[in-house]
């Protein structure tokens, strides 16, 4: 009986008893969720445009952040380093289109998926070769990103919001809004959606598949850079960040591989769900449930909606 109480009653009693901690937990989950959503967005963009599940999205985040910090370490001013990193991500998108996508066009999906595995190892090796494997601190203040916290004595306690987390939430939201506008309102965005719907039809009306792939991979690179800066500021820039990117997998399962709103909503559900789970229910089983809880939530959703919350329902004639 006490076990049932500790699962179904006590956590909610705690939430009511210490609302400041509940708000703090929700905030931490929200920030984490926004960043998961950004990572997932990178996966979704590429999957929609080229049908490739880009396993290298995580390492692209590390590579982008590492390039930025590494260039700064070598004496390049922060904003010039940022501009150069954007150029590097563009060059990467070009290289991916020329070296991987174009030669492998019309190959089965699994071949393209495996090619992104190869890309992962190339980027790991290149990053380590050029910038070394040791972790680096994000150049937060040089990029004029805020530091410190805003503390609110409220709800019978303290709610502390890190300024960098607030910046992360704002920047991520802005990026999502800009991307949504870009894809809805611009000619290139419409072309991308056409490619996502039907490659053959898009080609028949004169849309350049090669150009679209470069744009999409470049956009995913920019998203990776923004995510890398934010995660890097929260901890540091190291190859361990790649593991964090795997958190996008349950987000994608939940939100659907082809849905931008799905990536955002999925990210928030996973981010907030795992923090609430770890904080209120984790201690019941000795803690450390965060790493599998995200998958548990995603699988629970799959039971009822196999296509994810926002994924396309595929109906095939047998």
């Amino acid at each position, binding site marked *: 009986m006490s076990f049932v109480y500790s699962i179904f009653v006590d956590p909610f009693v705690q939430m009511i008893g210490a609302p400041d901690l509940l708000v703090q937990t929700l905030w931490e989950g929200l920030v984490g969720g926004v960043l998961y959503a950004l990572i997932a967005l990178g996966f979704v963009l590429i999957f929609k445009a080229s049908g490739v599940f880009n396993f290298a999205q995580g390492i692209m985040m590390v590579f982008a952040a590492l390039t930025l910090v590494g260039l700064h370490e070598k004496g390049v001013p922060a904003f010039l380093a940022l501009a150069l990193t954007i150029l590097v991500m563009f060059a990467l998108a070009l290289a991916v289109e020329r070296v991987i996508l174009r030669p492998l066009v019309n190959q089965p999906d699994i071949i393209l998926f495996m090619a992104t595995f190869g890309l992962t190892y190339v980027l*790991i090796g290149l990053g380590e070769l050029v910038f070394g494997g040791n972790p680096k601190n994000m150049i937060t203040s040089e990029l004029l990103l805020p530091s410190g916290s805003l503390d609110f004595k409220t709800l019978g306690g303290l709610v502390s919001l890190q300024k960098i987390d607030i910046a992360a939430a704002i920047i991520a939201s802005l990026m999502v809004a800009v991307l949504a506008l870009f894809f809805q309102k611009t000619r290139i965005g419409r072309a991308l959606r056409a490619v996502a719907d039907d490659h053959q039809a898009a080609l028949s009306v004169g849309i350049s598949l090669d150009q679209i792939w470069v744009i999409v991979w470049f956009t995913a690179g920019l998203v990776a850079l923004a995510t890398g800066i934010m995660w890097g500021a929260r901890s540091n820039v190291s190859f361990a960040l790649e593991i964090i990117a795997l958190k996008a997998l349950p987000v994608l399962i939940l939100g659907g591989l082809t849905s931008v709103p799905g990536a955002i909503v999925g990210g928030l559900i996973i981010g907030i769900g795992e923090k609430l789970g770890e904080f209120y229910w984790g201690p019941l089983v000795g803690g450390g449930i965060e790493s599998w809880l995200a998958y548990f939530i995603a699988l629970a959703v799959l039971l009822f909606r196999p296509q994810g919350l926002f994924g396309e329902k595929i109906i095939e004639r047998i």
Partner: protein
Amino acid sequence: MTNLKASLLALAATTALTAFAFPAQAEDSVFVPLFTYRTGPFAGSGIFIADGMHDYLTMLNERDGGIGGVKIAVEECETGYDTKKGLECYEAVKPKNPVMVNPWSTGITLPLIPRAAVDKIPILSMAYGLSASAQGDTFPWIFNPPDTYWDGFSQILKFIGGQEGGLDKLKGKKIGYIYLDAGFGREPLPLIEQLAKDYGFEAKLYPVAAAEMQNQSAQWLNVRRDRPDYMVMYGWGAMQPTAIKEAVKTNYPMDKFISIWWPSEDDARGAGDGAKGFKMLNWHGSTPDFPVIKDVQKYVVDAGKSQSPKEKVGTTLYNRGVYNSMLIAEAIRTAQQVTGKKVVTGEDVRRGLEDLNIDAARLKALGMEGFTGPIKLSCSDHNGHRPTFVQQWDGTKYVKVSDWIEPLSDKVQPLLQADAKAYAEKNAPWPARTEACDARS
């Protein structure tokens, strides 16, 4: 004739290629493989240690021509702190007759423990690995000087007791334990449970999965709710800088946050001014101001034979690597003395480790006077259980802030013995020790 010529050419080419691919160890050298990780999530800790280990052995080759006139053949194998890769490294180096193996991972050490006696390769897991392997009677091939993780926790507890006015004052206190949820971090849990009972404190556990090393906000929210009087960390790699940053973010009093001996200067520096006051255990110098480090700089770093940036030479984890290689070298030297052979084997070096006796005079001769304390191992004690001290981050460097702290041997030793016995029973039939014990140990 043409066929014969072609065959001879092919034979010559094959021989040449084989010789190139598998260089035989020169007869006047001993083979010391170093399992390192310069890549992956744990590279932040691994790179400094790898550089320190490699550079010290290179320095011996350059300055002294090796050990006792025998060159040291050093070879790194990249494990990425991955147990599977570590075992592949072990299989790769085994045919080359290594005189010992340094796994540099508790996860890699654990599966090697039963193999060591079979393959006749001693394992040096310096201040990591299975704490109970300090019991030489049960684990004749495993060595983990100068302290076990259990010693380390007891030393931290003793330090906390000192801050509170005595170990009896721990009754009713809350001590948080944040740890990497892997073999290494879980290793001291039985001891913590026992000491919590003995001293009446409440242990609050905060496991951090490897996948969440850089995402610890939930653990630190728990810390904020539980309000432990002290926090103890057993972290590694990216877990450490993130934990220190989260502690700062949570406004946890940093002078009550004490780590086992693994954080580097960079781990604390990343958290900015808020990290001032953070504490950790150590047993050696964290500066380049020792003759041994000067020699490394002169013969290796300045000569362009090191992978380490110059400013990292002499830092905490770099010096840890130097200490590790000093143990390797002294074990080989002792083995040479014990056996009278120049080119020693793994079996000889196992004896050398059991006979290891690095006293103050020897430390001075090694250029390590004031760098660390003496250590003596024996057939039954493969650890030494040496005292450590607490050093504190002042914003730019670690500063020693305590005297030498002995482990709580009266508590730890019986538990280590019991754990060694339990290990042998669990892994029955665990072979009884048949290795002879040299008179001098």
